[in-house]
């Protein structure tokens, strides 16, 4: 079972792959630490830059960004009481009181060690759980894949946020954007309007970059903040070591890792939710729950370990079924498609070096975190935090343009990116979740293509869609996932009425 993993090691350890992981990790630490920029933004910014790169080197860049970015948020959460990413919200609860007590360096060390442990365990779960899952999907044909795409779409209901209707509208926008271009079956031009540049449809890269990179730029310009972090805050001094107190944290690390992995695998459930659930669990099972929220380092450990543990595990459904477990996983999935790699068993069969190599890169970047996320590195990379946000805004635009312009060496893609950016900005401000739009964009063409392929094979007989056990299992799962928000609220109402 592990032969392909071992075979992938030489490709992962080439200097190019290692360099890309390193660059991705550093970029992730910086992006994660910058308030207003999320790991999703960072990943979306990186994808266009990976054009022309070998797929494994590109995936190394994304793996570094994912693990680095998810820890980077802890830096400002601890030092400034500003969560760099939504997932580091729970780190503020205990990290900031520790900083006020003069224990910022220790809090950062607890965060980086816990984040590393969570990320490593999560990467191991990715390596162990993905191959058996792909064996199951080998039994799938076009009809089953149509239902898998439907299952992915149903997970939208879990990504909908507070207002399901807004989530559905966002998903429909994504689905419609995926329709533009030539129909893959008949070749009919759809919504092309005689514009040759639209014939191949919108590039996923352009749409993702616009949706995630431009809205924070507009927000930064609106705020026009002219001051970065004070240099004083980055003069960190080690006072004690987390390694000498490791027995104190073992319980928290184990529980938070398990919580992170489970939530990561569930489609659409990762992100901020994981660290808060892990923090709550640590508090409720602690002998001293009252100390949580007042500077208990175990709170920082739980939040960061849970946060790290949902990273690689959210890639399990993404790599095996094409259904991302989180917003970042959805964007990484877009990165795979950009390189012509379709998730599922064919990825493991035709490109084992990339599939298993990426898993190993998630593991290696998890280990890199402990070196690059340490105090010395925080002092060095943290210098970027001293740049005023108003200077960062044009840098984000320019980095986006480097990637997007390079796709066809045409300003047309940059215009599309800006237009989608404005839509993304409006969606952000009006609380339309963007993750369903990305999922719609990725899964729409798959759903339509597989459905029409299945119907072509059966000469138009729709019963092919319900002919196998695998179809029925997927249909049942789809219904359960789709109805879960309503079932959950009905159950909560019943519980409230009873109690």
């Amino acid at each position, binding site marked *: 079972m592990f032969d392909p993993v071992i075979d992938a090691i030489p490709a992962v350890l080439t200097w190019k792959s290692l360099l890309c992981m390193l660059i991705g990790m550093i970029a992730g630490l910086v992006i994660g630490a910058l308030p207003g920029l999320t790991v999703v933004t960072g990943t979306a910014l990186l994808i266009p*830059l990976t*054009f*022309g*790169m070998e797929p494994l080197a590109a995936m190394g860049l994304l793996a570094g960004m994912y693990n680095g970015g998810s820890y980077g948020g802890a830096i400002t959460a601890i030092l400034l009481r500003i969560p760099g990413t939504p997932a580091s919200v729970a780190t503020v609860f205990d990290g900031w009181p520790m900083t006020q007590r003069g224990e910022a360096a220790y809090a950062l060390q607890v965060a980086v060690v816990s984040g590393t442990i969570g990320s490593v365990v999560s990467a191991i779960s990715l390596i162990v759980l993905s191959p058996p899952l792909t064996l199951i999907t080998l039994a799938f044909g076009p009809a089953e894949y149509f239902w898998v795409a439907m299952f992915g779409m149903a997970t939208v209901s879990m990504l909908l946020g507070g207002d399901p*209707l*807004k989530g*559905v*509208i966002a998903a*429909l*926008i994504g*689905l*419609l954007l995926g*329709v533009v271009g030539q*129909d893959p*079956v*008949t070749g*009919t031009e*759809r*919504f092309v309007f005689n514009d040759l540049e639209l014939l191949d449809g919108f590039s996923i890269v352009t749409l993702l970059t616009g949706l995630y990179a*431009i809205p924070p*730029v*507009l*927000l930064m*310009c*609106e*705020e*026009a903040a*002219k001051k970065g972090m004070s240099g004083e805050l980055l003069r960190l001094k080690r006072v004690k070591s987390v390694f000498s107190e490791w027995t104190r944290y073992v319980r928290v690390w184990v529980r938070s890792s398990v919580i992170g992995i489970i939530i990561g695998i569930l489609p659409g459930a990762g992100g901020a939710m994981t660290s808060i659930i892990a923090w709550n669990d640590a508090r409720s099972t602690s002998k001293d729950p009252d100390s949580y929220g007042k500077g208990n380092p175990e709170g920082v450990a739980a939040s960061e370990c849970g946060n790290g543990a949902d990273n690689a595990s959210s890639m399990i459904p993404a790599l095996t079924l094409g259904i991302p477990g989180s917003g970042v996983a959805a964007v990484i999935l877009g990165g795979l498609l950009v390189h012509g790699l379709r998730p599922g068993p064919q990825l493991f069969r035709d490109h084992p070096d990339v599939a298993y190599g990426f898993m190993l890169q998630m593991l290696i970047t998890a280990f890199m975190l402990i070196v690059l996320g340490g105090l010395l590195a925080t002092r060095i990379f943290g210098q970027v935090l001293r*740049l*005023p946000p*108003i*200077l960062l*805004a*044009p*840098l984000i*635009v*320019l980095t986006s*343009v*480097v990637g997007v*312009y*390079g796709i066809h*060496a045409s*300003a047309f893609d*940059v*215009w599309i990116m*800006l237009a989608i950016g*404005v839509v993304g*900005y*409006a969606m952000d*401000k*009006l609380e339309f979740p963007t993750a369903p739009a990305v999922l719609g964009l990725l899964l*729409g063409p798959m759903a*339509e293509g597989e459905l*029409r392929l299945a119907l072509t094979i059966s000469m138009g007989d729709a019963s092919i869609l319900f002919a196998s056990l695998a179809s029925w299992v997927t249909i049942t799962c789809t219904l359960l996932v789709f109805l879960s928000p309503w079932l959950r609220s009905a159950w909560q109402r019943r519980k409230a009425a009873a109690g």
Partner: protein
Amino acid sequence: MTRRAAERGFLLLLIVSAAGLMPEALSYRGGSQYFPVILLAALLACCLAALFRPRAATPEDSEPFFLNAPRAALALLLMAAYTLALPAVGYFTTSALLMFVMAWVFGYRDLKVIAATIVGYLLFTWLVFTVIFERDMAREFFMPWIVGY
């Protein structure tokens, strides 16, 4: 503009777009029309439902949509001007200009920091994308005078 008004405007825009695209989608043949027609119909239905659904007003509804509308418009205008100039003027020249102008018009006046950021970023971009990855960037307008073609 309040957030509620902006939300209504956004939904109206989606409704008009979906209704406007429907005849085009209906004109497709050979099965190509089903998926876009279903999606447009669903979008229309959902947007109408969101627009006319009864719901109690929340405090957020009356909050302003923009933190600072002139600044948001100015940022968009600068990005649009940058995109227009990019193919004709070249990536590095327009990028240096955008960094300087954006920082300056939004009130940042430390020229040393601006200059250092411009030089550092462009050097990094040139080294990574032009030298290492040989990425096709928009050619600088002055290059023909230097290299002669």
